[in-house]
């Protein structure tokens, strides 16, 4: 009797293909000798096949296409965001590197540049010139990126 009740509990899972091998064996064994459970098993089986065979609703036409468009726009934005972050990091680096020659220049003017830093005035000027050129290039790239970003925003409106 206990076996009957326990197997009866397993029947809906058996119909769902959710039993492990040993449970399945146990159910089959009991079904062979219990007519009531065998009838019950047929009922669960017909419910399961009705569920599995029920017509399935489809995604509305155009949903995938709309989603794809949003997905691609989001990918673009993502790429752009990463570029912007890179530029920002570059600008930070630039600011930091320009601070150093300015500090050195200040000390040079005040005449207390440490001997260990042995930088002559010509070297310092060259450094300043290079930094200025780099700053102009970075600013140009930033302007281009910002312009491109505005274009993307317009396209997505």
């Amino acid at each position: 009797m206990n076996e009957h009740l326990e197997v009866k509990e397993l029947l809906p899972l058996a119909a769902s293909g959710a039993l492990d091998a040993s449970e399945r064996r146990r159910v089959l064994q009991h079904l062979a000798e219990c007519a009531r459970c065998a009838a019950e098993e047929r009922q669960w089986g017909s419910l399961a096949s009705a569920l599995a065979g029920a017509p399935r609703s489809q995604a509305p036409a155009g949903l995938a296409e709309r989603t794809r468009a949003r997905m691609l726009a989001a990918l673009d934005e993502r790429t752009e965001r990463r570029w912007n972050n890179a530029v920002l990091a570059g600008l930070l680096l630039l600011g930091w590197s320009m601070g150093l020659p300015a500090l050195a220049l200040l000390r040079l003017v005040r005449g207390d540049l440490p001997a260990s830093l042995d930088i002559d005035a010509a070297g310092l000027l060259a450094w300043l010139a290079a930094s200025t050129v780099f700053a102009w290039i970075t600013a140009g790239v930033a302007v281009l990126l910002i312009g491109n970003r505005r274009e993307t925003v317009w396209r997505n409106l």
Partner: protein
Amino acid sequence: MISAAIMEWERAPAVDDELDRARRRDPDALTALLMRYQHRLYRYLVRMVHDPAAAEDLFQQTWLRVIEKIGRYDPRRSFEAWLFTVARNLAIDHLRRQRTESLDDPGSPARPPVSNPDALERCLADEQVRTLQAALAELPGVYRETVSLRFEQDLKLEEIAEVVEAPLSTVKSRLRRGLEALRQKLGAGFDREDRP
């Protein structure tokens, strides 16, 4: 271990390659995944939120979330389970905002499907199918979800456990109770039709 080996064997190399490319956010690979899973994902979301318009919105949000998070997807695990988990979290947030029902509370009855049923269902003449759909829609959230994932989305029990973040034993008991509740709702009418 054996089942893992079988899963690996079952998964075609082409799909693996596609998932690899999707993880690198390749637009073509992501589009292929979107196309492949669109119907199952939409069906699941409608089943969860009972509202086609909200399901469409959640569908789009799911794929936007996929783009953000796909780098963190572990390719050794089932992509379907991962995708449905992303969708589920968004659906739960939506339901929380709505406060109409809680998925974690088996006692709360689901709203019957409102608004317009989709075209396919509308055209259905088969009374039994309609009865079954209505009964399924009335199941409490946790049961409805598990039954739907098993029979409408064809997920394996292990995958369902992953999606709903519950142990396998819980999934089994939800499935059993869901089917029992379903049969009770359908009553003798459903049984009779299947008797020889």
